[in-house]
């Protein structure tokens, strides 16, 4: 495989084949908790993407200076720096969104996707490759949040990005279950089953 081809793979792997949420089953908490509406889901995805890409790039830049034996604490410091930046930025510029996402913004620091990518990929690859890998994983995460947010908002509230897309009678009595936790669990169960069925890959 030539170099350009493999670079392209770093980017695309994370979107479908190694999708962090639906294939690798990591980073579940924010996926379920913040996908109540498309807007909240995309807000969470933006915050997480900033942290994933940022810490991948910085960890990759510093990979020659980080001793192997203390790499995990150093990675955690790098990640928590980016989390603190996005935490305070959202608090200042998007207070309404921040109130909805709440504790899930600081909790990005223990999101397995971030530490997993830094440890498994960025520590061993160049800055550009790590950037592409982070971007790919972020896109995969964003895709799942977008799909879940769309389904839950349309069924649970009858709206899409806050605009009415269903008849008035449906909006009066929507499937409230989809907004509540059971709806999130059942929806991701169905999505995972569809992935198992159509991707023909054992990923149990």
């Amino acid at each position, binding site marked *: 495989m030539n170099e350009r081809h493999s670079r392209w793979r770093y980017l695309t792997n994370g979107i479908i084949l190694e999708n962090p949420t639906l294939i690798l*089953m*990591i980073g*579940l*908490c924010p996926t*379920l*908790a913040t996908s109540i509406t498309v807007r909240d889901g995309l807000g969470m995805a933006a915050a997480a993407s900033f942290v994933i890409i940022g810490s991948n790039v910085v960890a990759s830049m510093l990979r020659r200076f980080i001793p192997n034996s203390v790499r*995990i*604490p150093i990675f*955690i*410091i790098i990640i*928590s*720096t980016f*989390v*603190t930046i996005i*935490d*305070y930025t959202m608090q200042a510029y998007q207070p309404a969104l921040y109130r909805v996402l*709440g*504790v899930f913004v*600081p*909790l990005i*620091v*223990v*999101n*397995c996707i971030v*530490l997993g990518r830094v440890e498994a990929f960025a520590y061993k690859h160049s800055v550009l490759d790590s950037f592409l890998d982070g971007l790919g994983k972020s896109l995969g995460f964003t895709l799942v949040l977008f799909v879940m947010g769309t389904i839950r908002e349309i069924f649970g509230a009858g709206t899409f990005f806050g605009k009415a897309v269903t008849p008035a009678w449906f909006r009066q009595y929507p499937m409230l*279950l989809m907004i*509540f*936790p*059971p*709806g*999130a*669990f*059942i929806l*991701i*169960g*169905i999505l*995972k*089953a*569809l992935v*198992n*069925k159509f991707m023909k890959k054992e990923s*149990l």
Partner: protein
Amino acid sequence: MPKNPALIFLAAFLVNNILLIRYIGLCPFFGVSTSLNTAFGMSAAVLFVMLLAAWVTWFVFHLVLLPLNLVFLRTAAFILVIATLVQFVEMFLKKSYRALYSAMGIYLPLITTNCAILAVTFLNIDYRYNLLQATIFALGTGLGFALVIILFSALRERLDYAPITRSLRGYPIAFIAASLVSLAFLGFVGLFGLSL
């Protein structure tokens, strides 16, 4: 948020259950709930570390970060404190309490990245709890985690023997079962006037 200790406990234990209603700590929930033994070990470790972490981070926040005006370092400080604490507990148990160590030792390193622990320490600060309230909140949350993970592992042991369509086996059916258990927990909403 309730201020009465009994209500704080009940809210953390049932009404706002950390796994099924707040969706925090799901990775260990689906990861280790495959058998009763691992579920017991994991929940004992989580309960123990959660209480310790709640105390330590409460003191770190109120005696170090607040007086020095370093509140913005909360995220970094808490996770490093918890990681160190877990390492320390692991070494201490290994040396002094072998039986306890063999029961929950292998789960301790996993706990550093358990979002349930970190979430409790953040929420203690966000809700402005005092030390007693923080302890009760951590206790309720830890017991709620244990209750759900143990109940659910019993359920999953049965699911292993059930005839299930191929594509639903494993994670998907676990999610759907979790959805039903979560639906049952939604029934606690309104208990003593506690809301979501």
